[in-house]
């Protein structure tokens, strides 16, 4: 039902989806007779996905990830051709009481639970954007689960300046993202409040 066309020549995986409801597409539609062997991606629905518009460098994507299945699911990776790297990030309080953002190995979502990705909280970190992401663009991201199944999610870009978020880094394209330490990225999260959503929080 979703029509995807390339928006402009050279645009990298930035596609227009006619559907504004951001229904995720997965490889199979129905769980198999044995639920435990059904791909995890099949039981997950991502809604309200959006990405903060960014001229270059870094940004973040948000939305609600619902596990509608009977088994726990674990997201272990996210990627997009719109960025050289993406990471799963959580926001937690450090020893000094400051809220910090850091990469995690996975997002666990219990059956029937949903996880809110939102500014100031957990999010999908986007690093080294390969083209400017402007308001109204659609960016396709692929979530990978720990059983290897994948789910494409289309996030609409929005101008957003809220929650004291500063994702713009310096020369992020040159850096080794795997070792990235937010403390050196010029990000200002020191004042961030209300980032109390833990993974798997029911909404």
């Amino acid at each position, binding site marked *: *039902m979703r029509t995807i066309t390339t*928006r*402009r020549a050279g645009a990298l995986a930035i596609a*227009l989806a*006619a*559907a*504004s*409801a951001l229904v995720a597409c997965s490889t199979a539609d129905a769980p198999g007779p044995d639920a435990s062997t059904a791909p995890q991606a099949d039981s997950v629905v991502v809604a*309200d996905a*959006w990405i*903060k*518009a960014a001229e270059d460098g870094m940004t973040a994507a*948000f939305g609600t990830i619902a596990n509608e299945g009977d088994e726990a699911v674990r997201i272990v990776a996210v990627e997009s051709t719109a960025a050289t790297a993406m990471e799963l990030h959580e926001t937690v309080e450090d020893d000094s009481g400051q809220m910090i953002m850091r990469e995690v190995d996975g997002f666990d979502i219990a059956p029937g639970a949903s996880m809110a990705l939102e*500014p100031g909280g957990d999010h999908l970190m986007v690093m080294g954007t390969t083209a400017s992401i*402007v*308001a*109204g*663009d659609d960016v396709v991201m692929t979530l990978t689960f720990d059983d290897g199944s994948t789910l494409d999610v289309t996030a*609409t870009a*929005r*101008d*957003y300046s*809220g*929650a004291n978020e500063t994702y713009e880094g310096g020369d992020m394209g040159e850096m080794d993202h795997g070792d990235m330490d937010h403390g050196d990225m010029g990000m200002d999260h020191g004042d961030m409040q209300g980032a109390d959503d833990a993974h798997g929080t029911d909404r």
Partner: protein
Amino acid sequence: MPDPASRGLSRRQLLLGGAAAGAGAAAAIGADAVARVVAAPAATPAEVLHGDAVVPFHGRHQAALAVTPQAHATLVALDLLDATDADGLRRMLRILSDDAARLTSGEAALADSEPELALVPARLTVTIGVGPRLVARAGKEVPAWLAPLPAFAIDRLEDAWSGGDLLLEVAADDPLTIAHAQRMLLKGSRSFAAVRWVQSGFRRSRGAERQGTTMRNLFGQVDGTVNPQPGTADFDRLVWIREGWLAGGTSLVVRRIRMDLDRWDRLDRPGREQSVGRTLANGAPLTGSWERDEPDFAALTPIGFPVIPEFSHLRRARSDDTSQRFHRRAFNYDEAPTAGSVSESGMIFTAVQADPLAQFVPIQQRLSDLDLLNEWTTPIGSAVFAILPGCEPGGFVGETLLA
């Protein structure tokens, strides 16, 4: 000292005339006595809440023009930024449509910083209109009527209230809902367009009187009695465009009409009624008893003058050509007075019709040529927009423009 309730009734007796005075006085005394004798306050009737009322966003037509006008409306005109090309228009209109679809259903918009404010839709509608420059940028031919209206002798137009490339009409029965929706829509569009003007207006609050009651303007007049009603074949014929990229759309003329309340104060009640041709009490034509009575323009006074004067607004606003009609959707405004005055008031008059040149302009010309009401009213703003067709879920308002 009478309590507020009985004072209110006394004032009401004056307005309703002698016949009601007896009953009103009895009620006032009764209420007073109850308040004094009964220790516990009387049980209040169950509160009727309207906040969750939803006007569906999707459909063949944009929704607002076919609903009973909400209590409040804000019209925002924007000018496109130079960099906004056809692709930018597509992105902007998709964002606006997505925001509008969510907010009108009582859901937060994407990237909504104040999502709690979205939870009371209160019949929120968002109507998207486009001006000639936007249509040209989209690469479509600009309809002949999509241009500033011809100049009228009565006009004293100010740039501050005129023109625009994009119109957002945000209306609801709750002003806080409007303020939030307006901010979300403008945050969503600020990469593409800048605010040109904002006009906010109001009618009676929802629940203050029966829905569908003809509004009163700040002159106290019943205003807008004759108005093709949504849901009728007459309305459909007068309002909707049938062909081309605007099929299912229409046009909106926005006129900001300043009303000089201080000068109006100097006019006596018969003079006020003659200027419009209707009674102030219930809006009945001066030849009738009830608001909906057909005016009798041939009726003469004992000394031979028309009962409804030739110069009255009612007489002048009615054309013999019944195709020269439109649907009106008006809101009062009451702004901070400028130095030395106590009022800066008027009406945001909007007219909806398939073709402004054929339907609206002839009437406006007649009123410009002669209408006693012009003594107290002055058009100070004017704009014409094409109201885009509606869209279905998954689509966006403007998809036919950009197709």
